[in-house]
């Protein structure tokens, strides 16, 4: 959900702007007026842009990027994320990242921080955490998401995070820390239970230890000698009556499932807010998944080209040469991993055009058909 304040506009102004926009559109047809404005004044029109002005490494494959946004980005709320679009070798790639800086950040007024841990075979994150990224311009969405603190601060807060799942939470904690510095106390009793592979890989550890008001519990795989687990009892060992807190959780899917079970067993699911990172196809499992044709609501498990799969399902997508030349069968892929048989390239991007006749699914895929 978008957190931007609703702008209540005068209906007369709205209809005037609509009429003006339409008249402009008659002049610029077949293009939209925005395309001309974006080309002539890119700072004010078109997508929101940001420049990577600094990169601060944490450990191998993990770094914080400082982005200088343009004026249109606005202020985020602690815990929100952005979708970032970058062109890598001429291909647009879009990924979502939590903003790790507090809205009342210590850097420039238009700077935000993204703390990114790269996935080994990912197409995007290894490039983002490479020092050569500094100076690159990227596109940003406005800040999004409802993983934010309630307007009225509750008496007790519990954050449970795993790995890079701490990134939206650190924004909230930094925000509370500013408040603690200003007012002497953050205004709530705050507990953080964080899971990490090792102390070295525990993000922001030094900074967290500098927050005197924070009840910090760090669990590392390294210290434990095994993968940590979580259940109702182990959670109660940290916060006995955790059902009476306002809780936020972000991290790997198994951890989130365990937290949900723990809260459900005390009938306190309402107290818990979860932020999920959607993991893109990792390139390892090449088995076919389920092909879903979203508009006609049909599904199939089939490794043949998406054009054949669609036709077998009784759909009639437009098609022409059936050999990847003419483009008649191009269609929007809403999500999922596909392989282009002409180039062998794997695509994990959402909302991109694919040629049905020369594309196969290599994971769960949703097609706009």
């Amino acid at each position, binding site marked *: 959900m978008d957190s931007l304040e609703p702008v209540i506009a005068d209906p007369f102004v709205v209809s005037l702007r609509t009429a003006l926009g339409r008249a402009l559109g008659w002049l610029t047809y*077949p293009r939209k007026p925005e395309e001309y404005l974006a080309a002539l004044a890119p700072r004010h029109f078109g997508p929101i842009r940001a420049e990577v002005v600094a990169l601060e490494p944490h450990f191998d494959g993990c770094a914080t990027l400082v982005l200088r946004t343009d004026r249109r980005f606005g202020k985020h709320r602690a815990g929100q994320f952005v979708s970032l679009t970058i062109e890598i070798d001429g291909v647009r790639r879009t990924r979502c990242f939590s903003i790790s800086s507090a809205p009342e950040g210590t850097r420039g007024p238009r700077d935000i921080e993204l703390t990114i841990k790269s996935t080994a075979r990912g197409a995007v994150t290894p490039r983002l955490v490479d020092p050569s990224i500094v100076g690159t311009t990227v596109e940003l969405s406005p800040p999004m998401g409802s993983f934010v603190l309630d307007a009225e601060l509750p008496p007790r807060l519990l954050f449970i995070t795993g790995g890079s799942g701490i990134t939206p939470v650190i924004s909230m904690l930094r925000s509370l820390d500013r408040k603690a510095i200003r007012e002497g106390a953050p205004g709530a009793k705050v507990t953080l239970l964080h899971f990490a592979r090792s102390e070295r890989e525990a993000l922001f550890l030094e900074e967290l230890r500098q927050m005197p008001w924070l009840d910090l519990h760090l669990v590392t795989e390294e210290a434990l000698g095994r993968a940590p687990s979580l259940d109702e009892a182990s959670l109660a060992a940290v916060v006995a009556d955790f059902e009476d807190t306002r809780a936020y959780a972000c991290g790997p899917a198994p951890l989130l499932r365990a937290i949900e079970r723990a809260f459900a067993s005390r009938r306190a699911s309402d107290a818990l807010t979860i932020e999920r990172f959607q993991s893109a196809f990792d390139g390892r499992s090449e088995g076919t998944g389920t092909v879903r044709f979203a508009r006609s609501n049909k599904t199939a498990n089939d490794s043949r080209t998406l054009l054949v799969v669609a036709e077998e399902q009784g759909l009639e997508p437009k098609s022409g040469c059936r050999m990847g030349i003419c*483009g008649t069968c191009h269609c929007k892929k809403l999500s999922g991993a596909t392989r282009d048989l002409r180039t062998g390239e794997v695509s994990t991007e959402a909302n991109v055009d694919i040629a049905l006749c020369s594309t196969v699914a290599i994971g769960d895929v949703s097609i706009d058909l």
Partner: protein
Amino acid sequence: MKNDCQLNPAQLEAFGDEMYAIHQRARAARGAEDLAYIRGVMRTQLRCEVGGRALLFASFIPGAWVAGTALLSLSKILENMEIGHNVMHGQYEFSGDPALSSRSYEWDTTCPSEQWRHSHNYLHHTFTNVSGVDHDLGYRVLRVDDKQPWRWHRVPQLAYTAGLAALFQWGIAGHDVDMPKYVTTPSAERDPEDVRRVREIKSKAWRQVRKDYLLFPLLAGPNAVAVFAGNLVANLARNLWSAAVIYCGHFPEQAQTFAPETLEGEGRGHFYLRQLLGSANFEGPRWLHVLSGHLSHQIEHHLFPDVPAWRYPALSKEVRAVCEKYGLPYNTGTLSSQLFSALRRIGRLSLPSVSEPALAPAL
């Protein structure tokens, strides 16, 4: 399958493999450079358009009308040829940039993009120069192929050729509908799909006319006539230029046509061979290639329609080398020689062919 150049089946397959290898390398090479190129052209085009229209508004200044008309002509040519035609082929779609999506790009002509993609990308590029299937063979108006039957009304077809060039965007607009048939069919018996297409053409044509011949002249107030005339000349210049480029692509004397039987069981080798033999290039300075949308390299365009067109001049060296190796013709010349050759062919075919095929398929 008919082999048009006496390559034996093994040679034909090897030829196809070599072309495919060039094609695959070219596809794999697509990247940031291509985006930088096309975005640069788009920026230039946009500036030409805004500048041209502004100059036309100021046409009371001496020379401004000529400069404005020239810039607007340049803008329309760049937009149609190097941007629209090539973006709609999906040449830049690898980038995932919605502004370069072949599916959603709408170009600055009276021809609806959707219909263009069908008649051009599919029919013309798949069935290139196959009589009766590829309607680019004469646009249902001209006789450019011995396999088309001769009739008396073909005699003045050089005049039709000139007329079509002047009104080229309108010819292209109606290209996906069999217009001669459509206008002679009583409205109740028309194919509903054709009726829908004609409605779509009318709607787009109205928007184009409204912009160039109504709104901009009205906005110019006392300069209305100058703006109207400037827009008219710019559209005419674009029409003549694009027609000349297109005529040079498939109509020069040596460009071959094919019987529909050619398509039966056609393999990769013969597909590439047909594209090669049916197309013709013209040479010239770089700016000429850009203004032609690199259709000066019609051969490379037909071999690799999904490869960014600005790469064709580099690819042509590889294509020529393969052609030499297999003893295949590579049809190229100057713009004027190719245009003259095309007009000579159209003129020759305005009269009955010396050896008219006895059983020409009805067209």
